């Protein structure tokens, strides 16, 4: 495998980036559509079939050797490297940002034949309080800063406060805003209220991309997840996202299946393109590959790049690094050999 990498390195074009197709990449584009109830009411989800699809996919798709290495690098590039803890400090955030700039040990990156590639995580995701510090720490890297800015994680502060928080985060330099919805609107079927709330957030985001967190663990059923996905997209979400990481159950493959099928159907109906972000509980390289395979199967390769797909994760990167080290050296790796985030 290393031979193959070397032969590529020889033939690789010079320059800081080899994201050759970057100009053709599909980007989120969702101005939203007027609220209608029909697609929400038309939702039909069969739980057993969804579970069966994701369970059998694990046996149907796998990537090995160089393909696995490449997919894992792609997974890194799709990570929103995240810290959302009560004990976060500026120092902690700056350390995270440094890891985002160089997520993979340079010797491993070189051994993979990617010395010339600028490998970074997709974004860094922090609380509003740390947006400015993160923007500063990431200056010049091109790595966007995402902020959770709407009374995260419960989202139950007054709407006016939440909108203000968004505006402040954008003012501080966040280019991506992860909002949380009022779960009550879903649980009581108040779709119009949900739509209006998300739409107001979108307007507050201005030029920033908005990721709407459905908190699927709180919504409980796949039917609720699908309906909330539709409303969030109709209201103009650029991404829909599973979880805050604080619910009892975070991202799962069945929830992912339902949400990305909603993305597909929404695009079919409106032409608008929405990205997807599973978050919480994705901590192993194997998990990451399963998500990538599901995205590829259900939405296609366009959703295998950070414009349209992100992992919300904190510990995932460490496992991927160790897997890549194993790929390069053939030996199982030790955590302390990789820089911590």
């Amino acid at each position, binding site marked *: 495998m290393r031979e*193959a990498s070397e032969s*590529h390195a020889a033939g690789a074009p010079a320059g800081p980036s080899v994201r050759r197709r970057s100009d053709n990449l599909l980007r989120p584009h969702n101005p939203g559509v007027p609220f209608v109830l029909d697609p929400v009411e038309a939702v039909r989800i*069969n739980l057993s079939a969804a579970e069966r699809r994701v369970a059998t996919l694990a*046996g149907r798709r796998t990537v090995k050797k*160089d*393909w696995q290495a490449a997919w894992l690098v792609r997974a890194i590039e799709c990570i929103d490297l995240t810290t959302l803890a009560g004990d976060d400090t500026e120092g902690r955030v700056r350390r995270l940002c440094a890891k985002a700039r160089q997520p993979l040990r340079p010797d491993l990156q070189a051994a993979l034949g*990617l010395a010339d*590639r600028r490998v970074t995580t997709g974004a860094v995701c922090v609380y509003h309080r740390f947006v400015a510090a993160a923007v500063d720490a990431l200056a010049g890297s091109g790595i966007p800063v995402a902020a959770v800015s709407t009374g995260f994680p419960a989202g139950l502060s007054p709407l006016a406060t939440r909108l203000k928080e968004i505006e402040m985060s954008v003012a501080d330099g966040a280019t991506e805003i992860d909002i949380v919805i009022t779960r009550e609107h879903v649980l009581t079927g108040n779709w119009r209220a949900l739509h209006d709330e998300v739409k107001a957030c979108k307007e507050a985001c201005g030029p920033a991309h908005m990721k709407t967190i459905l908190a699927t663990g709180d919504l409980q059923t796949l039917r609720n997840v699908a309906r909330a996905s539709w409303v969030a997209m109709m209201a103009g979400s650029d991404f829909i996202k599973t979880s805050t990481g604080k619910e009892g159950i975070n991202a799962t493959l069945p929830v992912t299946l339902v949400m990305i099928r909603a993305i597909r159907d929404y695009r079919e109906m409106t032409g608008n393109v929405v990205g997807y972000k599973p978050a919480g509980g994705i901590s192993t390289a194997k998990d990451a590959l399963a998500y990538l395979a599901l995205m590829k199967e259900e939405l296609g390769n366009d959703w295998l790049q950070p414009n349209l797909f992100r992992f919300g994760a904190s510990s995932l990167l460490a496992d991927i690094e160790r897997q890549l080290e194993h790929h390069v050296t053939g030996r199982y790796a030790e955590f302390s050999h990789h820089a911590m985030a």
Partner: protein
Amino acid sequence: MSVAEILETMEYGPAPESDRDARAWIKGLGGVTRLFVGGAWKKAAGSESFETVAPATGEVLARVAQATAADVDAAVKAAARAQPAWAALPGHERAKYLYALARLIQRHSRLFAVVEAMENGKPIRETRDIDIPLVARHFYHHAGWAQLMDAELADREALGVCGQIIPWNFPLLMLAWKIAPAIALGNTVVLKPAEFTSLTALLFAEMCGKAGLPAGVVNIVTGDGRTGEAIVAHPGIAKIAFTGSTEVGRKIREATAGSGKSLTLELGGKSPFIVFDDADLDAAVEGVVDAIWLNQGQVCCAGSRLLVQESIHERFVAKLTARMETLRLGDPLDKAIDMGAIVHPVQLKRIRDLVDAGLKEGATLHQPRAAVPGAGCFYPPTLLTGVQPASTVARVEIFGPVIVAMTFRTPAEAVELANNTEYGLAASVWSETLSLALDIAPKLKCGVVWVNGTNMFDAGVGFGGYKESGFGREGGREGLAAYSKPRWLRTAKAIAEKPMPKASGETLPVSAIDRTAKLYIGGKQARPDGGYSRAVLSPSGALVGEVGEGNRKDIRNAVEAARKAAGWATQSEHGRAQILYYIAENLQARAGEFAARLSAMTGRRRGDAEREVALSVSRLFTYGAWADKHDGAVHKPPLRGVALAMNEPVGILAIACPDDPGLLGFVSTVAPAIAMGNRVVVVPSASQALAVTDFYQVLETSDLPGGVVNIVTGDRDGLALELARHDAVDGIWWFGNAATAGKIEKASAGNLKQVWAEAVARNWRAAAQGEGREFLARATQVKNIWIPYGE
């Protein structure tokens, strides 16, 4: 390809499963494989052998021995020698052997999976994740039945030596379905794997050796159709179990006719896959993938007719064709493919020819753009739209990765289209409305219905067909009947039919006014079409009365009347019970008259005849009692959901009653049949026909809907044969001479109707032989409705 390049394409890349151990094992088979007979590996008697080929590459894997008739004979003899001791073992001892086989299969699961994928061409994912786990599960489940047999099947025993012939599409799973229940219940087996796929059967034989299975309990003979014929023809075999094509099944039905062998057939299908407008369409699309592209569509129960509600047809086809683009074809040993190779060029040609025929008939072809592997025996996933029910591709089993789509407007039309086939194996129903799905499932004429699912199997849930998809069930309690028989049969004697007495010219006057006994068709007394009558004589030859001489047109009319009485099947069980009790009540009211008639026809003493009438009344009560108690079962297969095993009537049953006792024989056969919701065409006793013609008035006064019971008197053998040949008759019971039993079995091959042809003297007066669950089981067929659930 470099990592950087892969980052551009994000392709999957190769993911090969190692074939090293499998190749080493195959190599160890030597030049020509051997046969597993009497616990030892033997060279075939003849020198003939054939190649077994990996369909994905064309590579010859091994040379397989062609077992001759002499080899089959040796295997049957070994099985026969082993059988008494095997059946005599305590159930627990047999259970331990089956348990050991289950464990051995698990321990060697990857070897089985790789060998099977290589030889059959199916993806390693399927053999590894589906076939082999189901095989192990089958042996575990049936280890349990061996353990429980003494308690749960106390009045039944093994059949003897079972000849088993299995297909190539699920080589090891079909072996397990055949061998596990057979040996669990004390039978021994001679099994022939399919010619294209012999290897895993030989590997299984090795496991039998490792398990220390007594010699002769399992015998494996390899070979082509000639070996199968030798098994079918062997007189030492008590039962033939066959899974394969309807064409071969029909031949086996004919070949075993009159041999006394019992028979179960699991044959072809053209199973409907019904999508209602309220289905989870994406789920249903995945369902189609599992229905028709599992095992390259080489699945007897493959959902091969896609019936989509007209309002969603366009959208569904768009989703499905988009999904087809992501299916991956290729090396069966690649862990990231969805479809492998077609088993043999012969099958590939058949698929191509049929698709060509479909296109000529106006169908539109949908295939993914991805290229099919150049070498090897591959065919792409295929959808044909614009297909009409009359098209060849909508009627003929293609047995390949080809699904044909049609539309329906209403649930009723969906059912009508679904049932518009000679087959009846399985169906899949997709709707998120429970009341709709559960309304449709019982209306589908097939043995398995999956609600919002497809191609689900479990050892605890019976599998098998209606109509020309065969008869008998495999798996679950319902599958045990196929490998056991009532104990009393062992000592039963052949039936002795008395010759008709010679007419003496005397007349025995019964009533003052002459009565004309006609036929009873559609609830009305009807004159026989031919306008002839036949005499009913006393043993001394005196004329007791005359009955109509029915002919084939009368049979036609009777079956037509039965067809129209379809509502009886859905009549409430309580309602059917009420009518049976009412019939009993009305028979009792005329008990004296019936006793006199019986006495006159049989020459028996009046007291004896009175006892027969009283028993008949009691028996009607028995089935009035059973009408609302022959409950189905709720299976709990390993999924979040249930499988409902529903006892459904066979349909239109033809019954040729025992000649003697005339009244009790009629009641004992007709009552269970109608209690279970069948409609019947009855040919009563010839010598005691008047007991049944007198019964017309009992039926007429008992609120029995017209057409449920139809009675045609006349030449019993000839009329029964006519019924056996009638394709609208779903099953036939014959209690009489062996010669006619054989003819009936042979004639039944036309539509593969279920036959119960019994040529032994049954003691109809004894409850153990004359009534009960055996009759109920014969009068019903089990449909399993799988209902996965969850929100």
